[in-house]
Structure formats: C-alpha cells, structure tokens
C-alpha cells in the first residue's frame, strides 16, 4: 500500500466515515460557522480523502479553523460527517511523535480569564481524546 493510501485509510478508520456515501449536497459547507476562514471547504474534505491527498488536508488552514462544533456532523443527510474527517486529520498530526506541542500541564498558567468559554470547550473537543 502506498503511503498516501495508508494515510487515507487511517483517516477513514479513525473517523469511521465512508466518504463514498457523500452525495455532494453541500449542507456541511452551508452549516459551517468557520466557512470563510477555511481554504479547503467542509464539502471538499471528502474528495481529498477519496483522492488520497491527506498531505494537503493536513497542511490546510481548515485543519485548525474547524471549531469542532459538529453542525456538519449533525446535519449531514448521508452520514458522512466532514467534521469527523477533519478531526481525524488532526489526530494524524497529533499522533506524530516528538513534535513540539502544548502539554496539558502547561494549560492552566496560559489561561486568560477573558477567554470566552466557548473557545475553551471547543478547544477541549479538538484536542481531547
């Protein structure tokens, strides 16, 4: 198996999503609150997985712009769940070892009382597994 294919299979495995179920209705993109911040739009996630171009997905702005609000997951009529796909892509990144990431212990001192609660909750959704 090529490494691209492996990556795509990994995404499917982590997310539990079958991208072939997508009927390209665009309801995910219509639901997305971060749509305008994203370079790759939610409805396009599936085609990156189908085309085994996980590299682009991982390097996209969208990866970190997704709020994990799961509106797309909730509303997708085909059970495709683009939010889960992008979350899986994040997992792929997070799972790469020896990378310089924030450790949970450092978080408390970085907390700003002015931070909106929503941001925290979505951050936990994004980074906690």
């Amino acid at each position, binding site marked *: 198996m090529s490494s691209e294919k492996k990556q795509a299979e990994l995404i499917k495995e982590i997310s539990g999503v079958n991208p072939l*179920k997508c*009927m*390209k*209705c*665009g*309801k*995910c*993109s*219509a*639901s*997305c609150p971060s*749509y*305008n911040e994203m370079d790759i*739009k939610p*409805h396009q996630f599936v085609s990156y997985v189908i085309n085994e171009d996980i590299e682009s997905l991982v390097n996209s702005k969208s990866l970190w712009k997704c709020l994990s609000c799961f*509106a*797309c997951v909730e*509303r*997708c*009529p*085909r*059970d495709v769940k683009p939010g889960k796909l992008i979350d899986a892509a994040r997992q792929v990144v997070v799972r790469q070892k020896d990378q310089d990431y924030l450790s949970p212990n450092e978080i408390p001192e970085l907390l700003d009382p002015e931070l909106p609660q929503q941001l925290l909750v979505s951050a936990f959704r994004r980074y906690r597994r």
Partner: protein
Amino acid sequence: MQRIGVFVCHCGSNIAATVDVKKVAEMALMEPGVVHSEDYQYMCSEAGQAKIAAAIHEKGLTGVVVCSCSPRMHETTFRKAAERAGLNPYMVEIANIREHCSWIHKDIEEGTKKAVILMRAAVAKVNLNAPLQAGESRVTKRALVIGGGIAGIQTALDIADAGYEVDIVEKTPSIGGRMSQLDKTFPTLDCSACILTPKMVEASAHEKIKIYTYSEVEKVSGFVGDFMVDIRKKARSVDMDKCTGCGVCQEKCPSKKAPSEFNRGLNTRSAIYTPFAQAIPNVPVIDREACIKFKTGKCGLCSKVCQAGAIDYDQQDEIITEKYGAIVVATGFDTINLDKYDEYAYSQSKDVITSLELERVMNAAGPTHGHLERLSDGKAPKEIVFIQCVGSRCSDDRGKPYCSKICCMYTAKHAMLIRDKYPDVNVTVFYIDVRTPGKNFDEFYRRAVEQYGVNYIKGQVGKVIPQPDGKLLVQGSDLLDNRQILKEADMVVLATAIEPNPDVRKIATMLTASIDTNNFLTEAHAKLRPVESPTAGIFLSGVCQGPKDIPETVAQAGAAAVKAIGLLAKDKLLTNPCTAQSDILLCNGCSTCENVCPYGAITYEDKEVNDHGIRETRRVAVVNNALCQGCGACTVACPSGAMDLQGFSNRQIIAEVDAICR
C-alpha cells in the same frame, strides 16, 4: 421408479461462466431415477423447451428437473412446456443454479460443485413428486379500490368502463385525494381542480361505481377471486339520502375552530363540514371531536337550520361486508413530519412552509384566497427561498433514503408561477441536483431559469434563522462558486419528502401484501409486473407503490385496472394444487391443525374409515382445497404427520435435506 430428465441451462454465459454445465449434466446421470440429461444454451427458449418436450416423448420421462434460473422466474414456463408434452406440470422441479449459484460464486470449481448438489436435491425431490391437479375457484366480478385519489378514481373508472362493478373506499369525507389540494400542475400549468373534478363527477355518476367515503377497510379475508371485505362506514351524522348539500349548516355552525385538513391546518373550518367546495359527495360530516352538540349536549343548530332534516346525531358506524374478486390499493402519500429538521425552523416560523402548504396558499380557495402572502403578518413577500430534498435522499433516520421524484418539477412550477404573477419577487432555489427526466420536463425547468429568471444555486441550506424583524436568514452554500451564502428571505418553502400514507402498513397486513422498508408496497416483479402485488388478486395504483407524478399515476392506475379486469373477466381461476391433505388413517382428530390455519380451511368430520380391516367412524380433519393456500402451518402442528403438503411433502423436503447433506 421415476424416469427423470435433467436439463441444464447455460443462460448464455450467466450460468456457464461459473458452472461447468456439461459436468452437471454428466453427474446427473448418476442420480437414481435419471435416465436422460442434456445441456443447452437457453432452456427457456423455444428450442430449449422443444428439447424438453422431445425427451419427454422419446425417453418416456415421468419427471423433469431444469437446472436454470430461479423458479420464481421460469417455473411456470417449464411446467407449461412439460404439460404441452403430456406430462403433469407438477412433475417439474427447478434447481436454481443461477441466482443461488453462478451469480454469487466466482470460482468455477466451487460453483460446479454447488450446482451439482442443487441438481441432486431437485432430483431427489422429483423422485417423490406426484402428479397434481389444479382445482378451480370462482371469481366474484366486482373490484374494490382502496383510496379515492386520482389513482383510485382512474382505476375505478377504467374497471367500470369495462363493465365491472367497482367500489371505492375513501377514508376522508370526499374523494379527490392529494390532487384536489394542488393548485396548478406541471409541466402544462393547467389547473388541478379543472382536470380532476370532471373525473370525480364521472366516478360518482357512473352506474357501476359505488363510493364509500368516510369509510375504512376493516377486515379482509379470502383470496384471489373471492375476497371478503368488511368496510366500516364511519358515522357521518348526516343522512346522505336526505342532504341536499345546500351548505347552510356549515355557515351556521358556531364551532369554527377546527383546523382544516384540506388546507393543511393553515386555517380553520366548521365542525360540520365538507372538506372543499367541489367535494364528492357534497354531503358534510360532523367532526364529533369539534362539535359542541357532541361535546356538551347543547347546540343542535345545524339540525334546526337543515330544511331537509338530514342531521342525525344518533347515527352509528356501519359495517358493510362485500365480496370482491380483485383489490386495488391506491392509498397514496403524505409529506413527512418535519420535527427532526429543526434547522429549517419549520416549527419556529409561520413563514417556513412545505410545498404542499404553498399549493394551498397559491390556490384561490385556500387560506389566503390565492394571494401570495406571509402567513405570519399577511405581508407580500419580496424574497422567497426554496429548499430542495428536505428529508429525501437521507441515509440517517431523520428522512427517507429515496428521491421523492416530484419535488424538482413542482418547485420549478412554483418558482415560475410566482415569478409570472409577482415579477418583483425574487425566487432562489437551493438544490442538490435538478432531476427532470420526463417529457417536456427539462424544457420546463430551463424556462423557469431562462425565461422567468429563477435563481438556482447548487448547494444545500444549512440553517434558517428567524430574525427579530420577522425575516428569515438563510445560510446556504454555493458549491459551484465555492462560497457560503447568507440570504434574507421573507418566505422559505421546503420541498418536503413524501412517504406512503401511514395507514398502508395496516392495509398491507390485512391484504398480506408485502411492503418494503420504506412502507412502499412491493410489486411482484420490479420490471415485468410493476402494478401487481406478489399476493394474487392485489394490484397497486399510484404512490403507494413508489413516488410518482400525476401522469405516471394515471398511467399506472390504468395498468392496474387492466390487470384487475383481466382477472375479473375470467369465470374460474385455477387454484394452487399445492395444498394440505390429511391422511385419515393417521389423523387423531385433535384439532391442533385447525387452530393454526389462517384460512379456516380445515374442518372436522366424522368419517367412516377402514384402518387395515378395522371399520369405524372417526373424527378426522378435512381440508377445503379451495380455501387452503398451502402455507403448511398445519403440517408442522400435526404431531402424527397425518397432515402433509402436496408439492412440499415431508418426504420431499427430507429428501432434499439428505441430498444436500450427502
């Protein structure tokens, strides 16, 4: 001992590609009783059938096994061929080596091995086959149509025109169905009522048609040609013979708060009502839930104002029992419940409506008298958004997995009509695909875009957000421009998925007609028998079988009628000879079989028997072959094995088991 011929079909390459047909034919010769075997390209062809006939004559065959496609496909073909050659048709058995073998296995060795075993099982069975004679049953020359919409009306008219009696049973107070609720019809834009009401009148005036409105089918027994049906005529509280349809009662009725079913609950009606002006029969019913007289005992105003003295508060439900030869199901559809689609704000805003509600809004007899206005404040909308596929093409449990088929076209119709009548109103349609297969359909859709300037956007809507000022903020995507759209609208119209009428499940159970996971009635064959149910004598008309538009419904209604007429035109039907039979020497007379028979086909009689020299009178089970449908429930209930099923006897099935496990 039987003299059996085995005929192995190649079915072109359908079988021959994964089954070594020559080998199967060769192996057959080793089976007990087999005196002849051959293989051929297409056994079902005339030449193939001729080979069977020739072998029957030349080799004196007493039994035939055809290794071919499913018996559901060609069992009748081969049995008829054998009959023509002078063999009892029930001496023919099919080994299904296509659907159950060649089509599911890829390895030729594996496929051949299995085909040989299936052949052996069939040979083992035929060894125990006995010639059977089909009996006859009579045909009641009257048809029942369940549902009085356009499908039911058309079917009834066609059957009646052929000279047979037809009864229509309609649940609501008037025939007309969904079509009577529509304003205009695509793709010609003619007025729905203008083309429907003449048919309604024709049906009600037809001497061969009897219409039971406000009635429901309660019980069905019997079988093809001889159904016995109980129809509950709900108490109308109005004497149909006396009522003149003057309408004074409805005007005077003080209780006017009941939601109008006909107008989809968008406005109200009186407690005594006819659903709409052109209702047939033009006789009102009293909604006892809403009527003050029924609720409190006081009032009685309608009775006072009725010159004809037609009001009858004491009227009771009536059960009518009638015999029918054929039954046509035409129960139609409803739109799905939108509770699970909260993102479209249907429950939050009066200005988010379904397309069927829009039909009523656009209709002159509707709640707004045909003026396009917002139901919340009565203001004229300037911006209307249509959302397609609401609940259609969904793989989750919120909606339906199928395409509702009619929405693309009626939305184009709505958009066009609005743009035509109100040129200053902007119309936007959010769609996934625009599906327009049909004569003049795509042209119609293109006209909406090109001539009327309807704005079609490929992309779904994610959310409709009601604004404090009463506007509706629609958040959608434009997949082709790759942008998200925020649009302020005054009205949002949802192309809501359609589903079979919820009552159809109950009716299907009564009729023992099969139904699919979406509650559409199953047809006997998806391509070749699309208007027949697998249950003999039951025919399908309209959307109860699958989504379809008016012309398709009318076409299917006619087709169902033809099938029903074909049945009613016969004086006698040949009955399935594969019925249960009791061996009186073994029967204990214990009544166990009688208790499980769904057809009441088993009775007990005191019969004189001669049990190996002992003559005595015994209570024994007797099967009425005209009533028995051959399910076999009794054969297993019988502890002594006295009850057996012809064509599927205990010994035959055990022989098959043995052959498979050999």
